[in-house]
């Protein structure tokens, strides 16, 4: 344990670098994944798109089952083939976005579909446009479940971002893998503990955000 302390105290800049890289990577991936997932989720929840929804959700599930390491590898091949840089920040972000899709998509889709049809009919019958229905009725009502999906995705992304170190994207995976190669327990612990702490913190923040955003009338306590 003392080695861990000593290392942190003697190399604060390095630890900070890994931490900041990790946060940046996760954050960028998360924001894009959220926007993409919510939009796509709302879209496939639309009327008459049941078959499309099945297809999209199925695809997202398959992506989930591919081991993250393999996905990084596959993406390297793909990007290399397209003549783009196959290592570093961009491929890492893309992989993380793909990973975050399933929980966000699934929750958004389910939440929108589960809004009480009577509520939607009432809104439409009173002369709301489809857009107003979506933003004033469906979305606020679906929000608690969508937020749960976002939290799920975030924890997942923060965790998997550690593996991004393997393709040169930096982050807290760097000390973990370096420690593994050199049998340096202190480095493994620093990386591992910080990843966990970061995941918990982000989850806690999002939970607060969810509680703040949940309309009061729903009476749903976010956990």
């Amino acid at each position, binding site marked *: 344990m003392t080695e861990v302390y000593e290392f942190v105290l003697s190399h604060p800049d390095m630890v900070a670098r890994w931490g900041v890289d990790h946060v940046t990577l996760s954050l960028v991936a998360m924001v894009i994944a959220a926007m993409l997932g919510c939009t796509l989720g709302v879209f496939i929840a639309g009327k008459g798109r049941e078959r499309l929804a099945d297809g999209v959700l199925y695809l997202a599930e398959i992506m989930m089952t591919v081991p993250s390491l393999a996905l990084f590898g596959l993406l390297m091949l793909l990007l290399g083939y397209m003549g783009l840089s196959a290592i570093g920040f961009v491929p890492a972000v893309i992989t993380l976005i793909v990973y975050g899709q399933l929980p966000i998509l699934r929750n958004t889709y389910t939440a929108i579909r589960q809004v009480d049809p009577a509520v939607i009919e009432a809104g439409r019958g009173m002369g709301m446009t489809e857009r107003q229905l979506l933003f004033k009725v469906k979305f606020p009502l679906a929000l608690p479940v969508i937020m749960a999906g976002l939290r799920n995705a975030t924890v997942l992304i923060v965790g998997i971002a550690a593996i991004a170190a393997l393709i040169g994207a930096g982050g807290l995976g760097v000390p973990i893998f370096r420690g593994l190669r050199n049998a340096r327990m202190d480095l493994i612990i620093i990386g591992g503990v910080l990843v966990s702490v970061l995941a918990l913190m982000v989850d806690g923040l999002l939970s607060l955000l969810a509680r703040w955003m949940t*309309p009061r009338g729903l009476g749903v306590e976010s956990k």
Partner: protein
Amino acid sequence: MIRLENVTKVYPDGTVAVRRVSFEVLKGELCVLLGPSGCGKTTTMKMINRLIAMTDGSIYIDGSDNSTMDETELRRNIGYAIQDVGLFPHMTVGENIETVPALKGWTKAEQRKRAEELLELLRMRPHEYIEKYPRELSGGERQRVGVARALGGDPPVLLMDEPFGAIDPITRLELQNEFLKIQQEIKKTIILVTHDIYEAIKMGDKIALMKEGQLVQYAPPADLLFRPKDSFVAGFVGADRGLKGLQLIRTREVMWKSPPTAHPDEKTEAARKRMKQYGIDRLAVIEPDGKFRGWASASDAQGAGRVKEITKISSVAAGKNAVLSEALSLMLTSGSDVLAVVDQHNRLEGVVTFETIQETMREAVQGGASQ
């Protein structure tokens, strides 16, 4: 106000939901669309605000063809209340009622004022309810808010799909009565869908009875009951149409106005004479201020003494707006064949007897049969 001409709905799979339905609802009238489930009544209603697109025919609202109007604009000017209410759970009662005013671009202050007015109209104290959320309300209160919301934009036309459906029978009766009173004030043109014949008879100025997508008979409730067009209508209104007809007539229409009465301090002798004179065996006893006290019967009035000594005090009385079925029910439960009709201060207005009711219904049924 609302005119349907050969309105037809055919679904893509060929099912004909509504076939050439035509009728007209006059301004301020309440028209009930009645029929068994699957008869096309809800479909017909939803074609009016174009929640369902019609296949053929036309619908005119206040003279203009509804297919030429902007869909959302059309709906904002037609109140809409449904059985499941569909209140927005994430909005307060006030915000729910303000939905259409907000869509119409009223100012915040105007919206709030409207919400308060409507809560007042539905006998819900605004300051108590306006900030509540739907989940904090009882079933009956939700239905009220649903109706208030439908009235939000002060639409001339109101569509109601089983608006009193999902509540217990007692609350339903209460709401129906209240709504009838409100309608007296607001005089909207209303189309109300129900499968409940009692509700139809009670609420409707006219009833459109539908069967398998077609309009079978469009007539006032009394005509439907006593002049059914065919065996389907007769079957639907049921063998107890006489009993149902009791709902159509109010006590004030048949009561004996200013009947002979007795005062508590009168001699029984005088009361007995009066009964004999009118050929009746009971007199309503009223206080000097006109309040109904009870009954004095001829058999008790044989001896000397004062009327108050033989008065059977009774609090059973009907209002003058009570329907005959209520009056009859009061008679049956109190075991009496006469019933006092009183105003809201319990002052005697008249008397209804069992014979009156019998006579009235006999006339109604005969009147129907002779046409």
